[in-house]
């Protein structure tokens, strides 16, 4: 694939990977420990996605700011090492045939009405992004933000570099919505002007279209949504974003059946069918949503289904029904 991420998106669909951190957890390895102590395991996870057909690999750096690492078991003094190693391992799996994304996620510090917390969060991200850039990431991805204001701040830090940046926003479902969505399924709602709308809102009450427009104005090269929703529930969100802006849209639904209560526990939820991921990947392509992948719960098998549908499977393996 072309080295230029944005150029590839202009030409057609780019297939990302699935939920690498969750996949490592399913195999019995916690993050960030897996990065430093079991790099060969992490490399195999990336490689499994590579063989399935992924073209972009998200390095396992989402929770690797200094503050987050401290919280996750006192790894903060090794912040630089963790980020460098995560990018390196992803690069080893991708070789020169794939792109490596440095991931930036919430720091746990951000409070909208506290200036001190905002500048601390900003400091955390700037420090991490500098390491990701010097480690050789090809692009940056802001992930797992359920607030627009926080996502904007992270994006600002990313845009101080010259790397293309994908800014995604989550729209987690409340219990009421889960109940409601069971009946609505994936039917697109349309407003009087004929534009698809969703009821999704971030925690600071921004709609998907509003998120998309704001993030593009702030300089995001790609906007979209990642995780927190299964394909059918994320579909209206990305459709709304698609209508709202001109830039490429990222569609990274979760591999867990998030419309069922209790899905949060790993591997215990009703999982998404491979065929379902494949159909949504095709549907996204038809609607001009070009950056496609999976998130937590989407293992190599689900990404393979998408790759088979999109015609970009790298090493063909026939998954026979049994």
């Amino acid at each position, binding site marked *: 694939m072309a080295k230029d991420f944005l150029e590839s998106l202009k030409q057609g669909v780019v297939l990302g990977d699935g939920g690498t951190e969750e996949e490592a957890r399913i195999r019995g390895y916690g993050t960030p420990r897996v990065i430093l102590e079991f790099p060969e395991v992490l490399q195999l996870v990336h490689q499994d996605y590579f063989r399935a057909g992924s073209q972009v690999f998200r390095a396992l750096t989402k929770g690797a700011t200094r503050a987050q690492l401290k919280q996750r078991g006192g790894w903060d003094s090794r912040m630089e090492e963790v980020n460098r190693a995560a990018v390196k391992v992803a690069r080893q799996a991708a070789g020169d045939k794939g792109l490596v994304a440095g991931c930036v996620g919430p720091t746990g510090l951000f409070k909208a009405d506290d200036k001190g917390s905002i500048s601390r969060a900003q400091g955390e991200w700037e420090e991490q992004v500098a390491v990701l850039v010097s480690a050789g990431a090809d692009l940056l991805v802001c992930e797992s933000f359920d607030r627009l204001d926080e996502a904007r701040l992270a994006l600002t830090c990313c845009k101080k570099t010259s790397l293309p940046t994908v800014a995604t926003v989550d729209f987690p479902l409340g219990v009421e919505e889960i109940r409601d969505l069971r009946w609505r399924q994936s039917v697109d709602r349309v407003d009087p002007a004929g534009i698809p709308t969703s009821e999704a809102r971030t925690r600071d009450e921004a709609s998907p279209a509003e998120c998309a427009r704001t993030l593009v104005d702030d300089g995001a090269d790609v906007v979209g949504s990642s995780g927190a929703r299964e394909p059918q529930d994320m579909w209206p969100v990305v459709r709304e974003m698609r209508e709202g802006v001109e830039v490429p849209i990222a569609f990274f639904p979760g591999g867990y059946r998030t419309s069922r209560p209790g899905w949060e526990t790993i591997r215990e939820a009703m999982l998404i069918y491979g065929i379902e991921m494949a159909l949504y990947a095709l549907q996204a392509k038809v609607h001009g949503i070009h950056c496609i992948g999976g998130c937590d719960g989407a293992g*190599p*098998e689900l990404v393979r289904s998408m790759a088979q549908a999109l015609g970009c499977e790298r090493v063909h393996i026939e998954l026979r029904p049994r």
Partner: protein
Amino acid sequence: MKDNILEMLKQGVVLGDGGMIIEARWRGYDTPDVIVEHPEVLRQIHKDFFRAGSQALQALTWWTSRTQLDRRHRWGDRLGEITRAAIRLAREASGGEALVGGCLNQTASGSWTGPYIFSPDNAGSRDRACAEWDEHIAAMVEADVDILIPETFGRLDEARLCLSRCKKTDIPTMVLMGGMNRMSDGASPAECARTLVGEGADIVGLVCGHDPVGVWPAVLEMRQAVDVPIACQPAGHRRSGPNTGVLREAMIVSGKEMAEFALKAKAEGIHYIGACCGAGPEHIRAMAQALGCERYPVT
């Protein structure tokens, strides 16, 4: 710790592993292809189970008999090489620390996994099934397995026949019937256990078929019927309810439930505890934590 399985079972519980074929498939690899084409992936799966706490690893030989290999890729002539490779990979994964079992599959006509050889009323088919197993067992003996595991049998008569071939070696043999309340030739779990033990099985038990809830009555019946160690390896997929036959589409059994099952089994004197299809390293880790034999704790 590598020791005779029977000695280990006398001392207490032995933790097995989860479902290799499904775990490989989950990661995007097919069986038996993964043995030949991506050995590093297979070794890593074994290693993940070992690190979680497995004390006995089952090599991926369940699908490497001559007929099965031929059906897939006309690889029948490579039976010896592929079977030995599968066993070597399991051995390497633990650095020789865990026991390695070699699995043998049923061959009965009408079973979904079998290569359609064994048919109860056909003497010729019995000979063909024996030839199939003999060749497979010979490769396992050559690779020096610690346990022979004829497994997932749906018929007692076929399991008996396979056991008789395993008993020609001096390797401890663990016969695992498919997790059903009654076999398709009418035998109850207790009857299976008594007959197989009478014919020399060192360990008997149940595998796959049921989830931990469904397997319970049958395994208790076996426990009460005989004095040898009992093995129980339920599926990690929920087997009761709709859509449960299809991979990854079933409600998956939680690690917590697996851990509770492991403790319950231990309390009932069921000493070989493991899991099957749908149970990954995470499940085995949960069981290992409950049983106090987790090997490398991972935060």
